[in-house]
């Protein structure tokens, strides 16, 4: 049987799955070629690292902006500590730096080559993964990724972080937009594309969940009360609007709710609103859609779990989530996302 060409025995995925819907208008008999597992792995991680760089920049930006507001030094410190905590980097940080302060945390998170999660490390990893499979990318995608890396180094060298952190964060976000745009605009929408999208949205789901967790944790009052801590409503407003801005959702919030900023609505927007491109449910929509498009004989269970996770989000209500505890909810979500990443690796990227 192996002497016959194996692709003849491949299931006709176009009919079995929902892929047909994805390739609407295309002739169903035109099969796409399978791709190298190693290539898929590099593409998946390339997209993840680029997304992670963007989210780190967003997170740093919101912390930096918040720290410019009049607030207790304790609160400022808490912000930077929270940022390290969310990325699970507190211990690494403290092994290198004496104390937590804005300058050192930003250095650690932006330009420290020893920190595998720094923006520098993420951009390098994205670029190295791209370089490993540059043949599978369009010239534009490769050059964008490569140029981002080269230019970032130039910026860092010229002292951009010290000069104007906000501008550097903005630049990172912009390059990530460009990277996503050039992917959407030039890549053939075959498996290579789908694995990149899976990487992007899995990473984003993870990052949004972490952001929510730490920011709700920071307003340590059980937020469903009045929302009033020691500093009162005003600080609350700045706190939540900063959170919204960090995911480009401030204007979106106003548009959707036409209401003052309330924590539970912020949570609803970033967890349950499918139209919101950085919400958990939106990310899971994309993960499921792209996973279906690449489904193979081993991936049934991973696909089922992804679908289950999405369904849980689709049919949840924010008051229920809050009743069981937001922190517990998000922790469980992160576990399930981690588990999905694991399954994807096993099913597609690192087959025996």
């Amino acid at each position: 049987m192996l002497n016959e060409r194996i692709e003849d025995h491949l299931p006709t995925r176009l009919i079995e799955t929902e892929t047909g819907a994805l390739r609407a208008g295309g002739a169903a008999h035109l099969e796409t070629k399978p791709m190298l597992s190693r290539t898929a792995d590099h593409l998946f991680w390339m997209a993840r690292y680029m997304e992670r760089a963007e989210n780190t920049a967003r997170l740093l930006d919101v912390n930096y902006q918040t720290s410019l507001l009049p607030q207790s030094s304790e609160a400022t410190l808490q912000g930077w500590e929270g940022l390290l905590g969310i990325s699970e980097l507190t211990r690494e940080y403290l092994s290198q730096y004496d104390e937590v302060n804005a300058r050192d945390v930003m250095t650690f998170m932006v330009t420290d080559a020893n920190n595998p999660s720094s923006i520098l490390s993420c951009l390098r990893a994205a670029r190295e993964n791209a370089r490993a499979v540059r043949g599978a990318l369009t010239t534009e995608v490769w050059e964008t990724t490569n140029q981002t890396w080269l230019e970032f180094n130039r910026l860092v060298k010229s002292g951009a972080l010290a000069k104007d952190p906000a501008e550097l964060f903005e630049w990172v976000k912009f390059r990530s937009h460009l990277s996503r745009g050039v992917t959407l605009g030039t890549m053939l929408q075959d498996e290579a594309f789908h694995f990149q999208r899976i990487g992007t949205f899995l990473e984003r789901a993870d990052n949004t969940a972490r952001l929510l967790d730490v920011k709700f944790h920071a307003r340590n009052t059980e937020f469903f009360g009045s929302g009033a801590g020691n500093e009162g409503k005003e600080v609350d407003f700045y706190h939540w609007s900063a959170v919204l801005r960090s995911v480009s959702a401030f204007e979106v919030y106003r548009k959707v709710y036409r209401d003052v900023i309330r924590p539970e609505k912020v949570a609803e927007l970033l967890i349950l609103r499918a139209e919101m491109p950085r919400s958990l449910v939106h990310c899971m929509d994309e993960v499921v859609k792209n996973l279906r498009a690449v489904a193979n004989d081993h991936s049934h269970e991973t696909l089922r779990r992804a679908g289950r996770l999405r369904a849980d989000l689709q049919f949840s209500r924010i008051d229920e989530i809050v009743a069981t505890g937001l922190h517990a909810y998000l922790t469980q979500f992160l576990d399930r996302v981690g588990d999905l990443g694991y399954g994807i690796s096993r099913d597609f990227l690192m087959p025996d």
Partner: protein
Amino acid sequence: MRFFDEMHVSSAHAEKQVRDHYRTYERWLGRQPGELMASRREEAEMIFRRVGITFAVYGDKDEDGSGTERLIPFDLIPRIIPSHEWKEMEKGLKQRVTALNMFLQDVYHDQEILKAGVIPAEPVLNNAQFRKEMMGLNVPGGIYSIIAGIDIVRACNPDGSGTYYVLEDNLRVPSGVSYMLENRKMTMRLFPELFAEHRIAPVAHYPDLLLDTLRALAPASVNEPTSVVLTPGMHNSAYFEHAFLAQQMGIELVEGKDLFVRDDFVYMRTTRGPQRVDVIYRRVDDDFMDPEVFRKDSTLGVAGLLRAYRAGNVTLANAFGTGIADDKSIYPYVPKMIEFYLGEKPILQNVPTHICREPDALKYTLDHLGELVVKEVHGAGGYGMLVGPASTKAQIEDFRKALLANPSNYIAQPTLSLSTCPTFVESGIAPRHIDLRPFVLSGKTVQMVPGGLTRVALKEGSLVVNSSQGGGTKDTWVLES
């Protein structure tokens, strides 16, 4: 020593005169302000960096984080070859590569050429490059070196004219073709107006010819062959080229670990399970290709590949064992191969070579050590070599002893005066030595794109064009008549 200048006719008395085929270019260059050319050079460098056209330097680390990747310097002044010269060269290349492939077919089957005494058996059969595993193995089309790179230099004759010589055949895994393609793209981008003023033969279809050639040699039973490029990985110095060619041909770039052999068929690991591979354009040396037969410690190859190859289930480009035909000890016999297999006179000349295993040649070599270049037959990269005119008496005498101790380990050649081409250097424009590597594709027919890769030795007086030793490249134009 006199050199042949590709752009100018030089004579002792008269003004330097521009050769016909450079006339338009020279006039154009004269009109360009110096700053413009300088800014174009910077632009070229910036683009090469962004595109990532780099080669890896082993054991080197840059402070700016660009790691071990370096650019190969690109010179803006093209090397121009007139139409009639290229036509002749092309004929010569086809003839030479055809004969070399016939030699490989013969030497791994009936060995007629050895039996006929045209080439002595000893340097062939006792050569480390002779792969006994290939004996009796039939390769598709009888083509062993599907992709060949032939190094050509032009030397100056006493009357001032120039003659092309083949310096070396590269029949294993020749590289550099991506630079040929990217250099052309760069010139078109920087100086589009030049292409309106000249009729320059295009080269951009090389990947098409390559894919066509690979598919033509797929195992006969396969209708829609799957071809791949096999790379040692992203840390290899030629990785850019491997990725580039795979991308341009639209085929997978694989590493050894992506492939496996089952029941004598080769498969790659894909996201939808194993998929059969029919043609492998491999950029990995023989020694590392199959740990079952060659180096056991290799992780770059595929265990069982030779079995699949022997069973006729996969085509390798190039075949194993092509090194026997481009070994320095075999090179002197190529003109004889052409006569033996094709019954033709060689169109392209070999550099006159003294084979020191032959008593007369040894005597001549010993008498003229001060003028000759003497090379170890299996040496490469300038090791075990004597350059007579550049050596001290003591070095020559040391080498004499080594030569006498094992004459058959050496060949000797006259010191060649590589031609020069005007090149941008620190001080302005100055002549620098160049060579040429055309790429010859053998499938159903023998094909090539006009020209090849011109390498230039950027150091004054240097004859070393290798990129690892300060060499650069130039765009190569073949003018259409």
